C-alpha cells in the first residue's frame, strides 16, 4: 500500500478501508462545524475559553474512560458543565482569563489522575490529547452526525443575534436581545463542537481547526457569511489532506493539519500586507483610541 501518482487509485484504496471511511466521514463533519463555530470563537475573542473547554472536557473524558463510559460522553459533560460555570461566573469580568486558567489547570490535573488510575494510560492519553482520527468507529460517526445536526441547527437559529451581539454588544442589548443567554447558548454549542472536534485534533490541538482557519479567513473576506464559508473550506481542505497524507506514512494526521493551517495563516498574513492598499484610510491615534474601545473621555 504505497502512494502512487494515480490519485483515483489512491482514493479507491483509501476508501476500501473502513477506518479510513469513518475518518473521512467524521473528519468532514467536524471540519465544517469547527470552521463555522470557529468564526464566532475568533470574533468574540473566546479562543482561550474554547481551549479551556477542551481541557475541562479532557478531565471528563478521562473519568469516563476510567468508569467504562464512552469518552465522548465524559468530554461533553465536562466541557458543558465547565463551560457554563465559566460563562456565568466570569461574565464581563476583566479577570476572566485568570478564572479560566485556574479552572483549566485544576481540570487537567484531575484528568491526569484519572488516566493514571486507568491501566491503558499511555495510548488513551495520547489519543485524547492529540487526536486519533484513524480510530473512529461507526458509532462515533453516528454520534458526530447527531452533534453536527444539533450545532448546525443551533447556529442557524442564533446566527444574526449572535453576530450582532458579538460585533456590537451594547446596541444589541439596547435593542432587546438577551445577550447573556446568547453568549451562554453559544458557549454550549462550542462545548459540543469541541467534544466532537477532539476526535480529530485532540484536546491540545483544538485551535488548529477551531481558531486558525477562522483567523485566516478573516483576512480574506469582509462579509461574515463569506468568512465562515472560507473558514469551513480551509478546515475541510486541511482535514482531508491531513488524512490523505497520514495514510501513507506513520506520522499522525493532526500534525499535518496543524502544520498546514499554520503555514496557510502565515502566508495569508504576509501576502495580505502587500496586496492591501490602505490609501487614504490611514489610522491616526484618535482612531486607535476609539477602536481599542478604551473609555478615553470619562
Amino acid at each position, binding site marked *: 500500500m504505497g502512494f502512487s501518482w494515480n490519485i483515483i487509485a489512491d482514493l479507491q484504496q483509501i476508501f476500501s478501508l473502513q477506518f479510513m471511511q469513518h475518518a473521512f466521514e467524521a473528519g468532514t463533519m467536524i471540519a465544517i462545524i469547527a470552521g463555522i463555530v470557529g468564526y464566532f470563537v475568533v470574533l468574540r475573542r473566546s479562543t482561550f475559553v474554547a481551549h479551556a473547554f477542551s481541557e475541562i472536557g479532557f478531565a471528563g473524558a478521562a473519568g469516563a474512560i476510567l468508569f467504562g463510559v464512552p469518552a465522548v460522553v465524559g468530554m461533553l459533560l465536562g466541557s458543558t458543565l465547565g463551560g457554563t460555570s465559566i460563562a456565568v461566573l466570569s461574565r464581563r469580568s476583566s479577570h476572566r482569563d485568570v478564572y479560566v486558567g485556574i479552572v483549566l489547570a485544576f481540570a487537567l490535573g484531575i484528568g491526569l489522575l484519572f488516566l493514571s488510575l486507568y491501566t491503558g494510560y499511555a495510548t488513551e492519553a495520547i489519543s485524547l490529547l492529540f487526536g486519533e482520527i484513524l480510530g473512529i468507529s461507526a458509532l462515533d460517526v453516528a454520534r458526530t452526525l447527531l452533534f453536527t445536526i444539533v450545532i448546525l441547527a443551533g447556529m442557524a437559529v442564533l446566527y444574526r*443575534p449572535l453576530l*450582532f451581539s458579538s*460585533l*456590537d454588544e451594547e*446596541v444589541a*442589548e*439596547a435593542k432587546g436581545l438577551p445577550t447573556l443567554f446568547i453568549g451562554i447558548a453559544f458557549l454550549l454549542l462550542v462545548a459540543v463542537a469541541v467534544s466532537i472536534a477532539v476526535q480529530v485534533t485532540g484536546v491540545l490541538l483544538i485551535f488548529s481547526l477551531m481558531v486558525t482557519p477562522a483567523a485566516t479567513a478573516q*483576512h*480574506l473576506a469582509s462579509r461574515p457569511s463569506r468568512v465562515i464559508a472560507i473558514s469551513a473550506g480551509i478546515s475541510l481542505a486541511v482535514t482531508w489532506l491531513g488524512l490523505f497524507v497520514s495514510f501513507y506514512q506513520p506520522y499522525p494526521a493532526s500534525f499535518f493539519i496543524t502544520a498546514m493551517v499554520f503555514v496557510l495563516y502565515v502566508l495569508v498574513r504576509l501576502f495580505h500586507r502587500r496586496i492591501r492598499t490602505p490609501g487614504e484610510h490611514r489610522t491616526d491615534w484618535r482612531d486607535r483610541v476609539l477602536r481599542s474601545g478604551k473609555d478615553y473621555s*470619562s
Partner: protein
Amino acid sequence: MSTIVLAEELAAGYSGKTIWRGATFKVDSGDFVAIIGPNGAGKTTLFRVILGLQQQLAGSIRVFGREPERGSPRIGYVPQQHVVDEESHLESLELVRLGLSGREWGFSLRSHDDRDAALAALGSVGGRELAHHPLAELSGGELQRIFLAEALVSNPDLLLLDEPLSNLDMRRERDLLRLVNEVVRSRNVAAMLIAHNINPLLPYLDKVIYMANGKVAIGKPSEVFTSESLSALYGIDIEVLHDSKGNLAIVGIEGHHGDE
C-alpha cells in the same frame, strides 16, 4: 409635533444610590437636545433609563407615552464605546444591516431588503461609498457616521448619541454635528446627544439638559448657560462669559469641560 420623552421629577442612580434627582423635561419630535455635564454626572444613566436598561429611582418617565421598554425599535442608540476589531475585515454595510435585522432569529429570507435599507441609511449619512470598506480601516469620523447609519436604519423617532464627538478633531466634530442636525431636521426625529463641550453644539440646539452636582437644569441654551442658573446648579459662584463669536466660557468650576 408629538412628545417623545416626558420626565417628571425623575431620579436615577445605581444600587439605590441617587446620582441625580429632580429632572423634569420634555423632548418633542424634531428637538435637538444636548446633555452636558462633568464626568460621572449621570448622563449615560439617563440614556439607560430611557432605553429601559435601568429603572428610575423616583419620579416618572414616559417614552412614546409609555413606560420605557428595552428593545424599542423606535429608538436608535449609539453607545459611547464601540469596539472595532482590527483583525477583522468586516465591512461597514454588514454592521449597518444588523441594526435592522440583528434582532431576528434564524437566517434571513429577505436579505436584499435589509441590504437596500442599510445602503439607504449609509446614503443618508453621506457614507454610501464607505459601504464596502472594512470598519477597521475607517477614521474616527467615518466610524461615527457608520454607527449613526446603524442607528438610523430602523427609522427611529428618537436618536440617543452618547459622546459621539469625544474622539474627533474640531473639523470632524463640526461635520458630524451638521450631519446630525440635518438628520433631525429632515426626518423630524428627536436627537439627544451627550457631549462635554457645549460650544460646537450651540448653533443647532433646541434644548440643553445640564447635569451636575446631583441636579439637573433644563431649558434653551440661553436659559441654562447663565451665571445664575449654573451657580444655582453647582451651589458655588460661577460666571458664564461670551466671546465675540458667541462661544461660552464657564469660569469657576475646576476641571470643567465647557470652557475647553
